[in-house]
C-alpha cells in the first residue's frame, strides 16, 4: 500500500486539539522503557507527570501522597495484579485508564467498564483518552 494513503478507520473521532496541559498524570508502569515513552507523549502535550510507580506498593504510596488528576494504570506490575491500586483510585474518585498487553479479560473484575488502552499504543491514543476521561 502506498505510503500516505492507508485508510485509518477510527472508531471515535480524534479530539487531540483539546488542551490537557493543565493536567497532572500519575503513571503506574513497571517497564521503564514504556514509562519513558508515556512520559514523552505527555510532556509533549505540556502535561505534568508523576511516577512512574513500578509496583503496587509504590503506586499506593503515590495515591496516598496525592497531587494528580488522573492515572494511567498498567494491569500487572512485576507479576502482581493492580486490583488494589484500581480499588483505591476508584474509592478516592480519581479517574484512571488501564494500559495493558492483555485483552479485556486481564482487567480487574470490579473495573471492567473502565477505559483501556492496548499495548503497544500511539501517543494520540493516550492524549485522546486523557481528554475523554479527565475530571470535569
Amino acid at each position, binding site marked *: 500500500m502506498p505510503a500516505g494513503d492507508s485508510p485509518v478507520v477510527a472508531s471515535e473521532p480524534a479530539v487531540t486539539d483539546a488542551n490537557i496541559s493543565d493536567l497532572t498524570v500519575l503513571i503506574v508502569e*513497571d517497564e*521503564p*522503557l514504556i514509562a519513558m515513552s508515556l512520559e514523552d507523549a505527555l510532556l509533549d502535550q505540556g502535561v505534568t507527570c508523576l511516577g512512574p510507580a*513500578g509496583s503496587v506498593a509504590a503506586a499506593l504510596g503515590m495515591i496516598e501522597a496525592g497531587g494528580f488528576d488522573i492515572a494511567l494504570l498498567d494491569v500487572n506490575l512485576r507479576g502482581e495484579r493492580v486490583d488494589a491500586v484500581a480499588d483505591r483510585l476508584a474509592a478516592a474518585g480519581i479517574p484512571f485508564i488501564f494500559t495493558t498487553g492483555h485483552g479485556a479479560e486481564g482487567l480487574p473484575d470490579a473495573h471492567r467498564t473502565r477505559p483501556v488502552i492496548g*499495548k*503497544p499504543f500511539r501517543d494520540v491514543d493516550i492524549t485522546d483518552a486523557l481528554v475523554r476521561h479527565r475530571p470535569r
Partner: protein
Amino acid sequence: MTRLLDPSAGTLASDGTPAGRGLLIPCRVLLLEDNGMDADLVREHLLMIDDHDFDIQRVDTRQSFIDAVANGGPYDLILSDFDLPDFDGMSALAIARERLPRVPFIFVSGMLGEENAIEALKKGATDYVVKLRMERLQVVVRRALVEARDRNELADKRQALAESEARLRFALEAGRLGSWELTLADNRLRVSSICAANLGLSDPDKLTSYDQLLAHVHPEDRDYQQAMVQQAVNSGSPLDMEYRTIWPDGSVHWVQVRGRAVYDRDGTPTGLAGVSLNITDRKKAEERQLLLLEELNHRVKNTLAMVQSIAKQTLRAAPSVEAFPDAFQSRLRALAQAHDLLTRRQWQGASLSEIAALTLEPHVHAGRVTVGGPPVNLTTGVAVSLHLAFHELATNAAKYGALSAENGRVELDWEIAKPDQPPVRAGKDGHAGALVLRWRESGGPPVVTPTRRGFGSRLIERGLAHELEGDVALAFDPAGVRCRLVIPLSSRVSPQ
C-alpha cells in the same frame, strides 16, 4: 508376505462338516492290542465306517503305549484290549485319562465282566465293545467321535472366550481404562476397579447406583453429566463427555467417559455401557498451555511496546535521520540478546555476571575490560533493564569513551554492601543491604559532558533508578565516564 492361512487346511462348509467329494474326516487311532488277528478284525470294522479316513497306530506293550501317549499323539481315538501280557486295560485307561483327557477311550475286549465294565466307565472310559459283537464297534466309534468333537468344540469356544476376556481385561488395564455398565430400569451401576479408581474409590462395590456416581461428580458438572447421559439414551448417539470428579480426599480430578446406549429388540433403551479414563494430566497440560499462550501474548505485546519506545526515543535523540538505523538496530539487538539469554535460563532470571558478560563480550579484548563481583541473581525484568543500561554505557565507551582509544580501560565491578555501610539507604523492604555496582572508564579521550541527555543517560538515570528503586549517579568525569548504582537487595536482586 505373511501367510495368515494354511493353504493345506481343508475348507469347511457353513454347517461345519467337510465339504466336497472325497473329503474324509481324518481320524488317528491308537490301538492297544497284542493279538494281530484281533487287531486286523478291529481294522476291518473301522474301515467300514463312512466318511472317515482312519490312520491306525498299533502298540502291544506297556512301554510302547506310554511312549505313544507321551508323545502327545495326537490321537482322535484310543481303542484298547482289556488284558495284555505285561499290561492291563485299566492302567492304560488311567494313563490316557491323565495324558489325553479329551480323547475318547473305548475298550475292545474278548471278555469284559459287568463289574469291570462299570468300573471302566466310572474311571472315564467312553464305551466298550466285546469281540463277540464286533459289529457294534462302528456305532460306538461313530458316536464317540461325534460326541468328542462336540465336546472339544465347546471346550475350544470356552477357552477362546476366556482368552478373549483376558486379552480385553489386559488391554483395559494397560490403557488404564475403566469399564462400566448402567441398567436403566433400576439405575444400577456396575464398575470395574479402574473405573472406581478414576473417582478416587478403592472398592468398585461402593459404587452401585447412578445416584452414587452423581454424588462424586463436581456439583458444577452434574447437570452437564446428566444431560449428556440423557441425550445418549434418547438419541442413541455415542456418549463422549469430560467432567470433574471430587475424590474423597477433596481433590478435583478429570475423567473422560465414552459409551453407548443398549437397546432391547423393541428398540427400548435398557442401559448404557462404556469406558472411563482419568484425564487429569491432560487437562492440566491444556490449562498450562492456555496460560502459556496468554503469557506469550502479554510478552509479545509488552516487547512490541518496548521496541516502540526504543524507536521513539532513539529517533528523538538521534542527531540525524542517517544516525537512526544503526542506533535503533543496535538497541534491538541488545534486547534480543537479553531474550536469548533468558530463554536459555527458562525465563527464571539470570545472574549479574552473565548479563555483564553478555554486554561486554564484544569489547573484551586485550584485557581492556575487567568484570567482577560476587554472585547475584536477577529477575527477568531487572536482567533486561540492566543489560540495556550496560549496552548504552558500552556503546558510548566504544564510540566516544575509553574503548575508542587504544589504551582505554573499562572496569565493571560490584559488591554487596551491609545495611549500615555509607552508600546504603534504609530500603523499603527493611535493612537488607544493597548491591553497589560501579562502571569506571579510564585511559580514553577527555570526556565532555553532553549538552543534552541522550537515550542512554535517560534510561540509566530515570528508568533504571525508578525501576530498581535505587540511587544512580552517572558522572561525565573528564578522566572517564563513571556510573554508580546502589540497588536495595530484594527478591528481584538477591545475592546467591
